[in-house]
């Protein structure tokens, strides 16, 4: 894990991510400006840093109701505004980007931040950006695989010789600047399915797994499939980090947490995905074995520890700000994470 700058002896890493959504708060019906939203995201990262949280990341989505299409630029501002927290993308859509430019951006963010940058490369769950950026949706799979491979190659080799189908060839190309410690931590973003995880496993690449809802045990199968595939390809699964990512919200009681989070998730998903989140499924989120980390601080600590026992993962990252969640509530969550949740999790998961 050292290779990936993850020190397992310190216990499970705790992170925060935002998709950079820019949605009205359904409770008030009001939507802040894109300018305010971006400043709040930078402030959010600063608070997370001050609270001792390990990681903060920002995603790109090229569609209505999002504000961080230029997520690398936002991460540049965050790199400057923070001191210790690791920062990354959640995720960078590598399929519709030039890996050379992505690498240049993130190596630069790494230098600004003093060696704290990571890339999580994904394939996009929505496809509007293919038209917007001039790519053919028919190449969805091939674009990702080819560009992701090139990104990994640039990370490993200082002088790159490469030929592919979707980009001009590289001949003795130097991709500069180089990151502070020579290479970046690059993850493969994976949806909840085993088939998706196996692709990361076969390539021996760290896995970033997103999850929406359901029992945690379902996702154990995905993680097992990842590790088995890595093993089958000759990699040591014990050396490959796994991150899980999903909804998080804490309040004084579970009922209060559900009440404050549900309308934001439900209405936000209606606007961004065209379908809400079933209240019945969401109510099951209160169960200690649900993957949704919603509840009182103590219940969340127990949930995360249960997930840790099940998954043996290296990092969990929380999505708190979705759906127009007011910033004061986001700040309150960061505070509780820093003062109650992270200390408890570290205490139980750090190697003694």
């Amino acid at each position, binding site marked *: 894990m050292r290779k990936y700058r993850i020190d397992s002896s310190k216990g499970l890493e705790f992170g925060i991510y935002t998709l950079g959504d820019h949605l009205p708060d359904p409770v008030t019906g009001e939507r802040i400006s894109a300018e305010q939203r971006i400043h709040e995201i930078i402030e959010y990262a600063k608070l997370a840093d001050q609270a001792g949280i390990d990681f903060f990341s920002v995603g790109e989505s090229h569609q209505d109701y999002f504000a961080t299409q230029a997520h690398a630029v936002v991460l540049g501002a965050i790199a400057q505004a923070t001191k210790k927290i690791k920062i990354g993308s959640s995720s960078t859509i590598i399929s519709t980007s030039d890996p050379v430019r992505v690498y240049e951006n993130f190596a630069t963010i790494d230098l600004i931040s003093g060696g704290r940058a990571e890339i999580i490369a994904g394939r996009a769950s*929505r496809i509007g950006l293919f038209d917007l950026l001039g790519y053919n*949706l028919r190449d969805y799979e091939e674009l990702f695989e080819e560009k992701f491979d090139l990104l990994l190659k640039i990370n490993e080799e200082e002088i790159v010789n490469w030929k592919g189908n979707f980009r001009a060839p590289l001949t003795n190309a130097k991709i500069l600047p180089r990151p502070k410690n020579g290479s970046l931590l690059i993850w493969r973003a994976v949806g909840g399915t085993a088939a998706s995880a196996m692709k990361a496993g076969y390539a021996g690449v760290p896995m970033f797994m997103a999850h929406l809802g359901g029992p945690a045990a379902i996702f154990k199968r995905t993680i097992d499939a990842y590790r088995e595939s890595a093993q089958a390809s000759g990699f040591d699964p014990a050396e490959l980090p796994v991150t899980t990512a999903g909804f998080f919200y804490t309040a004084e009681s579970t009922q209060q947490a*559900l*009440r404050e989070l549900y309308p934001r998730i439900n209405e936000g998903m209606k606007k961004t*995905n*065209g*379908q809400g989140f*079933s*209240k019945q499924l969401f*109510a099951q989120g209160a169960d200690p074995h649900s993957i949704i980390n919603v509840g009182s601080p103590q219940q969340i600590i127990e949930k995360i520890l249960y997930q840790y026992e099940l998954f043996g993962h290296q990092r969990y990252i929380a999505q708190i700000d979705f759906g127009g969640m007011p910033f004061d509530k986001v700040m309150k969550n960061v505070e509780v994470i820093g003062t109650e949740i992270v200390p408890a999790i570290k205490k139980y998961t750090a190697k003694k």
Partner: protein
Amino acid sequence: MKIVGLVGTIVGHKTRIAMDYMLTTLREKDPNVDASLIDLAEYNIRFSDGRNYLEYDGDTQFVAKSLMDADAIIIGTPVFQASIPAPLKNIFDLLPVNAFQDKIIGMIVTAGSPKHYLIAEQQLKPILAYMKAQMVQSYVFIEEKDFYQKAMINEDILFRISRLAEDTVVLTKTYAAIREEQEKAYGF
């Protein structure tokens, strides 16, 4: 209450005749019902390529959105090659997997031969069940001989359509009430 009648074919006229009758019946029975008809013959719909339904444009997005916004849908379909027509299957493919969650779906089936009476049972219902529809169990099956000069002449069919209209409205109201009560019990 929004009810959309969907004519799931671009050829023929029997399904449209039955659906027009269905829409008139719905409006007569309950003036509060906002009933509209989508006849696929009048729209230019793209084949599904797997994208989110919000990302289509033109007629395709209009039809997909109208169905997603409906509280209930009455599907009218002929039987081609012992199956549902391709345009109707394409509509299902355009929508998300759980598209019919919390929706009531009724069915009217027309066919040239009585031998097709189980097609809806064996082909349409499993698709709707997979997409989480709450189905009105009994569908109306109409044969060639029930039509004469572009009108339905079999009184039994008219009675059946009337019952399907009533059942669809009643079930839509009932399931909404059940859901409301259940969601209230969650306390958030």
